[in-house]
């Protein structure tokens, strides 16, 4: 099995929101800023009123790399490792995989939408191409 993240009080909403099909990102209810990774203090105004809120799960591929190295026998290569910028705030970057299309078809700017991979206690957000 591929690694799973250690789930903590700070990141639990992000890693488990997918159980209900929701991508939850930390947002400040005072100033409205998103903070990612989630943190107990808003990274813009440093206030404490920050908590997980659902976002659309839509975004764009900011950049990517296609891993072709067989780091371990159980790995199926190639696979796409991407940084996705969220539609709600392109400064929020989700480090993830692009699934559902051939690796060589991924391009910068490609619109994508979240889905979730259940592994251990985590529901890992991954992204699939969608029409713009």
């Amino acid at each position, binding site marked *: 099995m591929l690694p799973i*993240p250690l789930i903590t009080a700070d990141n639990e909403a992000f890693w488990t929101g997918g159980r209900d099909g929701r991508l939850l990102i930390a947002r400040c209810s005072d100033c409205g800023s998103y903070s990612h990774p989630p943190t107990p203090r808003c990274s813009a105004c440093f206030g404490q009123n920050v908590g997980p809120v659902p976002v659309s799960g839509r975004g764009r591929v900011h950049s990517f790399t296609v891993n072709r190295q067989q780091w*371990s026998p159980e*790995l199926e290569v190639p696979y796409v490792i*991407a940084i996705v910028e969220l539609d709600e705030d392109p400064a929020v970057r989700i480090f993830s995989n692009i699934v559902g299309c051939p690796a060589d078809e991924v391009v910068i700017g490609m619109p994508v939408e979240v889905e979730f991979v259940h592994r251990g206690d985590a529901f890992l957000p991954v992204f699939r191409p969608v029409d713009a």
Partner: protein
Amino acid sequence: MSAELEQRCIISGIGQSEIGRPLQRGVTALTLDACLQAISDAGLRPADIDGVITWPGSVTGAGGLAPPGPGTCGPGVHAVIDALRLQTNWHYAGPETPGAFATVIHACMAVATGLCRHVLVYRGVNEATAWSTATDRVGADPDGVAGMMGWLLPYGAFSGPNWMGSWITRHMHEYGTTREQMGAIAVNARRNAQLNPAAVMRKELTLEDYLGSRMISDPLCLFDCDVAVDGAVAVIVSAREHAAGLPHPPVLFQAVGSALRGRASWDQWQDLTQTAAADAGAHMWARTELKPSDVDIAGLYDGFSVLSLFWLEGLGFCGTGESGPFVEGGARIARDGELPLATGGGHLSAGRLHGFGHLHEVCLQLRGEAGERQVADAEVGVASAGAGPLASCLLLSRG
């Protein structure tokens, strides 16, 4: 004019163990070789050393931005202190720094503040012996991966090429940087390694070889990646009053750079067309009146070939986005070019010593002791270390 920190310090001695892939001797033996050589090179005895620092030290766990892998740590500071029966005023090791040259900058701070007179700075690795694949990260922490790696490893991003790949993809997208341009870094390093008896990769490497090698993580291919080795480097940072009467010419500090202005993160860094090299570079130049055009040789970090491109831009040797054309064809960065790069073969061909190989080579060049590969009239040199959010750099000159 250098800032006060730099004015108070010199590099008084350098040492390097045998470098190989792999070696029979253990990493502690190699590290002590390098340390004793550096101490002797400075005209000192172990009893004169009153400070010690290494990076990352004897650490485990993958919580930080620079997670240790098999063979990357070498003996910790306490092991070296005890082995050499050193008597220190100060010692330190830690992985959470602005790149590996934070050790040298820390040593300068210890010397400049009067805490120490002679600081032993070292880096020892036995990755060639210890490293087979990154599978220890695939199987890492079955209960869940903590810290920075908890965001990367679950997505199969097990190693540096996976973390840096997206940065260079973006650089190519924005500026049209090509694989041929990246390859010029690898080919130049190999050409220089052919004149360095200590380099581990000395067989000819052509641009065609480079372009034909297998992909690791697009667009990074095998020859974009540096080579795991067993070996160690040490330098002695001394107070400037010791410059007179050294066995070798002292190497002077003109400026150090260690700034981090972007996110302290691999995946949240906002502008993937530049690395923390831009922050450390700007910081370094703000501490000196020297200019990029004053630099005669550059040991720019090349854990991946593309990192040298980021450093070229970050240090202002070319404009933003212009590093690809700058290196294309290799003439400008050759030993007889306007900015000789990786004159000892770099980490790509001389072995992965996490910046310390470059530091050793730049010191050799500034001392005029680089033998067959000596660059004529090398008076000012820069050495840099780090990738992504990690960066530190040193502007050095002949004493």
